[in-house]
């Protein structure tokens, strides 16, 4: 009997295995594991990609989408084991680290021949007999990004032990730009007006000192700013902002690095990467001193604190900042409503950063087609437009390409409620057509001025900036540096930050020191000890008084047995 049961069980098992194997074979489904920042893609585009993939290859694709929230978590996961991912989207300095560790596969995206080399299915016949082509989008990528990155990282030496050790490579071969942005100051325009510091000259003089409540001449920017400044709870960004502040406020004048080069003579890019002990000590002191002016450090709640008035200034990334600015439209401000918040990148110094797609060596080689098609797909103008619309950062696709692409224009027009029936159906959710008044922008030109130049035409036809202070296009700094005559920003004033390398630990220690400074719980202990002493003393006093009173009461009552308090 037992034998029969076990035989049956084995048979059943075999059948099960066979059927699963069979079902795998019949359905042609590829898969792809994407490891991206949280909230860093328009989810619909993942669905669209599946369709696109079917069009090109004739196969279905299964997407596994995993997210991270800091480069550090991502690096830890990739370097310490769990790395079952096909494409990752780190920031530039994390890419540098991954290359040094010899963990990435070169893609050569900007060399079409090399990039498409190992595509197994580059062209296929559609059901109706037409050939379906894959279109290479590397030409859409902003050249400025490639230049900036090549400039900042030069050649990276692979330091990990192995066959590739000491090989020098170029970062551009390893990554495909996705989004980029600047580091700047998000502030409440109306709070600044109230303090009387909403003035181009004052703010430009204070520069990065706005975050340190320093007017740039050694005094306070405004008494009212104390206790209303938010700093980003991020070591690298805070470090960059502090170094800029030190430079702009003249605190680096006359100081030289170990090689005898004056800090003030360095280019912005060199300065933020010149991490030495002297500079680190200055940064530590500045950050410690800054603490007395802070409302606090933020990770996620900065925007809310600015809108509720808890804080007035925040160190922010451009995408977050622009999202916050657009959310801050208030009909009751100004004559016809205004944005309550504003974003300001000081003109002479700043940081620009890039996130891009890379492929780890531990990817599943069977997913190569999917990896390459996905990365390339993201550089299609309409896809880039949809993504930048959703997440607020600047896509690496050239603004000119986006402006001239019909599909991308349609995406933006719909997203920003532009009255442009030639681009989209200009209708509300129920399908009723919108009038020009219902829309936020009267036509595409008005929108283009706002979106790409942060300005509008007044009644006399003059170009007016939405924000007199920044007076520059911060969404597309490359374009603005090239075309906008009113813009004083030079693209060279934005530096790219490399990994701290061997100085990493020292920076963490300095940051920890400033974070812990200024808190002293000893007085608290003193007061508590005092309170305890008083309380204990009071209790004893009460007991003592009670005894005395009782004894006093007892004395006249002679001849009674000496029992205190017993009632029996």
């Amino acid at each position, binding site marked *: 009997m037992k034998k029969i049961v076990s035989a049956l069980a084995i048979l059943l098992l075999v059948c099960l295995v066979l059927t699963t194997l069979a079902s795998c074979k019949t359905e042609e489904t590829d898969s792809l594991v994407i490891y991206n920042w949280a909230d860093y893609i328009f989810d619909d585009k993942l669905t669209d990609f599946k369709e696109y993939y079917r069009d090109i290859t004739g196969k279905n694709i299964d997407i596994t989408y995993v997210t991270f929230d*800091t480069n*550090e978590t991502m690096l830890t996961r990739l370097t310490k084991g769990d790395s079952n991912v096909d494409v990752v989207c780190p920031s530039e300095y994390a890419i540098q680290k991954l290359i040094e560790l010899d963990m990435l596969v070169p893609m050569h995206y900007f060399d079409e021949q090399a990039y498409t080399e190992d595509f197994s299915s580059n062209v296929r016949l559609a059901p109706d007999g037409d050939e379906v082509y894959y279109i290479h989008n590397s030409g859409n990528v902003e050249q400025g990004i490639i230049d900036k990155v090549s400039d900042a990282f030069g050649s990276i030496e692979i330091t990990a032990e192995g066959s590739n050790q000491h090989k020098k490579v170029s970062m551009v071969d390893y990554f495909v730009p996705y989004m980029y942005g600047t580091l700047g100051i998000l502030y409440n325009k109306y709070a600044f007006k109230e303090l009387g510091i909403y003035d181009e000259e004052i703010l430009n003089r204070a520069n990065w000192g706005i975050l340190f409540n320093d007017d740039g001449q050694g005094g306070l920017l405004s008494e009212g700013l104390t206790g209303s400044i938010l700093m980003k709870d991020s070591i690298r960004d805070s470090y960059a902002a502090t170094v800029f502040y030190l430079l702009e406020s003249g605190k680096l004048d006359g100081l030289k690095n170990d090689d005898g080069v004056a800090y003030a003579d360095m280019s912005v890019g060199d300065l933020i990467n010149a991490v030495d002990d002297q500079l680190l000590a200055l940064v530590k002191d500045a950050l410690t001193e800054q603490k007395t002016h802070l*409302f*606090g450090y933020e990770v996620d709640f900065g925007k809310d604190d600015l809108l509720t008035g808890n804080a007035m200034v925040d160190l922010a990334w451009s995408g977050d900042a622009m999202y916050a600015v657009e959310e801050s439209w208030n009909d009751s401000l100004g004559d016809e409503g205004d944005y309550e918040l504003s974003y300001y990148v000081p003109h002479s110094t700043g940081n620009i950063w890039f996130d891009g797609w890379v492929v780890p060596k531990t990817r599943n080689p069977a997913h190569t087609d999917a990896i390459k098609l996905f990365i390339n797909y993201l550089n299609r103008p309409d896809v880039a437009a949809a993504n930048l619309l959703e997440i607020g950062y600047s896509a690496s696709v050239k603004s000119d390409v986006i402006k001239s692409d019909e599909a991308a224009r349609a995406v933006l027009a719909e997203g920003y409620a532009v009255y442009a029936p030639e681009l989209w159906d200009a209708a509300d959710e129920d399908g009723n057509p919108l009038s020009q008044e219902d829309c936020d922008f009267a036509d595409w030109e008005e929108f283009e001025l706002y979106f790409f130049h942060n300005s509008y035409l007044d009644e006399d036809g003059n170009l007016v900036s939405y924000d007199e202070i920044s007076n520059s296009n911060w969404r597309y700094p490359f374009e603005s540096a090239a075309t906008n005559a009113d813009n004083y920003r030079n693209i060279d004033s934005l530096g790219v930050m490399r990994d701290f390398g061997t100085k990493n*630990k020292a920076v963490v220690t300095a940051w*920890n*020191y400033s*974070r812990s400074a200024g808190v002293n*719980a000893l007085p608290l202990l003193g007061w508590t000890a005092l309170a305890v002493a008083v*309380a204990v003393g009071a209790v004893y006093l009460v007991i003592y008084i009670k005894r005395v009173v009782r004894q006093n009461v007892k004395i006249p009552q002679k001849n009674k047995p000496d029992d205190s308090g017993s009632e029996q």
Partner: protein
Amino acid sequence: MKKFKFRFSRRAFAYPYMIFLLLFVVVPLVIILINAFLDDNSKFTFANFAEFFSDAGGGLTVLGNSLIIGLVTTLICLVIGYPCAYFLAKYHASNRVFVLLFILPMWVNFLIRTLSTKAIFMALDVKLGMGTVLFGMVYNYLPYMILPLHTTLVSIDHSYIEAAEDLGADKMTVFLRTILPLSMPGVVSGITMTFIPAISTFAISEILSSSKIFLFGDAINMHFSKTTNSFGVGSVMSLVMLVLVIVANVIVNLTSKDEEVKSTL
């Protein structure tokens, strides 16, 4: 043929949990211990200890502040919690509704509670700082003080109190010589349940001081989640924390002589 014997005793029921403990308590502790002695290149080093104990990153200052804040929180919780538990036990021993009222806040997620506390402080224009952090701590940990106290106080045999009264003790003496010693087990477990989370918390100080008050929990959190190569120092800090918890338990156990009073944490 040998017969395989599997004895299914009652002890077998404990195995799953023993395995769980081994995997998720013992192994992680060992990993922390190992990490504390490794540098970036996974070589043996004492540098992590040197870095922490030299106070270059302000680690010791942070630890001192955390200990003081934890101590004060525990004390305030005790001062508020004891009378509260006492009167709950004395007058409402049969009425669970009042006890429920004290546990009720614990049903709401503590992050939501703390965020709401911040919103209230902001609305009242209270400056965030040490005071608000302390308030948040007391507010969050008070139930952990009251509950064990209440349980012990309710379970005190009333005949002891009657006996004390019969023998002529006044109310104060009854409390000081009978009720207080008998409730010591509750006090001890209340203190451990409040003090230990209070020195390791990071969310409360982060939210209620906008991260300005940087406590030991924040420091450990920073070493693990904001950087990639300072796991070593973070592990040293975690070890220090562990030692502190053990020391706190030993002290508490030593000061309470009664055998039954031993803290179980």
